[in-house]
């Protein structure tokens, strides 16, 4: 399903995959957050995989969006796991982060499944 610049796909029984598109506008996150959370609750999801494969750079604004989404998801008991973070994005993020992010990270869905 498409919600204002993100594509949400159900994968497995409890998991959803969020793929941001180029149309994603994070300047007004309030409505977008509500729509995503509504969808997650409707689908009874427990985990949300956020695909960062297309994000070569994550700037503070985009990071703030990820943090907001993560905190909101935690409020409805959904774990958010960022996958496919690019080396360039990780490199950039690590230079300005002062604390660990509130979201989890994994190489990809498969590696997470192997761990669990």
């Amino acid at each position, binding site marked *: 399903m498409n919600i204002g610049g993100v594509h949400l796909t159900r994968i497995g029984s409890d998991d959803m995959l969020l793929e941001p598109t180029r149309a994603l506008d994070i300047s007004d996150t309030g409505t977008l957050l509500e729509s995503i959370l509504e969808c997650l609750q409707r689908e009874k999801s427990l985990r949300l995989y956020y695909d960062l494969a297309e994000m070569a750079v994550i700037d503070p604004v985009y990071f703030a969006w990820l943090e907001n989404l993560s905190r909101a998801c935690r409020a409805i008991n959904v774990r958010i796991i*960022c*996958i496919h*973070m*690019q*080396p*360039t*994005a*990780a*490199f950039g*993020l*690590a*230079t300005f*982060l002062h604390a*660990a*992010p509130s979201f989890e*990270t*994994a*190489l*990809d869905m498969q*590696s*997470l499944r*192997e*761990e669990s």
Partner: protein
Amino acid sequence: MAKNKTPVNLTLIEQLKLQVGNISGRIEAQGRNVFGDSNVMSTDEITDFSIEFLELMVALLDSDDPLDHHRPAFRALQTFFGNISKQILVRGGRMEDFVRYMQFLQRCFIESLGADEHVSPEDMRAILLLLSSVFNELMLAVFQTYLEEKERTIDAQQRELRETSTPITEIWDGVLTLPIIGTLDSSRTLLIMESLLNRISSERARAVVMDVTGVHTVDSQVSHHMIQMVRAIQLMGATAILTGIRPEIARAMTSLNIDLGNVTTRATLSDGLKEAFRLLGVVVSKA
């Protein structure tokens, strides 16, 4: 604008032509004396050097303005000396010896003039000025070559050192090890992070064991860089395991208020590997 050939140039050319055998012989003898023992230049090479040098010198004096550094004749002489000095450096020769040899070449010209009583004091003064100017420029060219070669060597050494100082090894499927030796400054951290993150992505590594046994001192900058690397690894979705933290490093980190709460640490590299294997569900047992 091109100048006409001066009597000074003509006098010098004439002297060179008259005493070419004598000068050439002295240059070769001195060359053999300086470079012969060290095998920096063979006897044939010294002879070739002597002939070519005298030819280029005559061509320079024959040009309209020998002191114009942009003239082809001057450029040719500069290049000639540059190439010779490069060759000497590559073969392990000392630049000091070559510069002294150049001073000897200059002295050869001056001494050959002294033998000619037809050269007036004014001409002699002008010739000395001309020769010293030309040879000073040539020595600068040699010095320039020396610096360039040294810089190239230092660059190559630094590149090699960087590569060998950050050997990222995939010790098991999905497990990378990175022994860090020495100090972590900003430029080195950037290099390590860049190659490490790319390796995590390409090898799909799930655990990175960073061994800091070789790090003897830690200040706020070094510890900040270590935390930065750990965070970048975690952001990629891999687990960072920090091993080999010496007691004095641990103490220093505590006094610097560095919190390793989110970092998996183990005493030794071996323990770190065991932890990585445990994370991956790998069991290593005796056959």
